[in-house]
């Protein structure tokens, strides 16, 4: 691990072809209410955006 937690060697992104693992993850929202990710795309397509960091 390098400065500020950077990777020593270049990594590659590896988005999955299916969101089965993602779907099983539960996360709290801004109010602390937990949501299973799969619930977001159960009825319609969902766009998930991962932010780099707060700030």
């Amino acid at each position, binding site marked *: 691990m*390098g*400065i*500020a*937690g*950077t*990777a*020593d*060697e*270049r*990594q*590659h*992104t*590896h*988005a*999955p*072809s*299916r*969101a*089965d*693992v*993602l*779907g099983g*993850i539960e*996360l*709290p*929202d*801004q*109010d*602390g209410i937990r*949501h299973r*990710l*799969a619930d*977001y*795309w*159960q*009825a*319609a*397509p*969902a*766009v*998930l*955006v*991962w*932010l*780099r*960091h*707060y*700030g």
Partner: protein
Amino acid sequence: VQLHREREAFEKEGAGLVLIAQATPRHAAHFRRRLGIDLPVLADEKRASYEAAGAKIATLNELLGPKVVAKGFVTALRSRQPQGRTIGHPAQLGGAMIIRPDGSVAWSHMSEDVSDNARPADILAALREV
């Protein structure tokens, strides 16, 4: 913020839009207030979903290299959002993904460096193909 501005366009396409960020629910609430957005923000302090989405950790060059910094500066000017205090893993990169109701990933763009972010217009174009 750019995504928030395009929220109606995403709704028109019938898709839900969810932001996921590092840190705690309290930080997520603060983030929404500070930027004046009402999109749901999920708090992933342990970055489990980042890993499952195939997001990567940047090298120093991908974080602070001259090309990356220059591009990031232009993006910051366009978005008119100043950089605040960093909360979360500073080298963790993000991305975007469109997921169909059957669980298949229709489209994704995971960042290769800090300046490589999917534009809302690109996400919307991909959404229209789903």
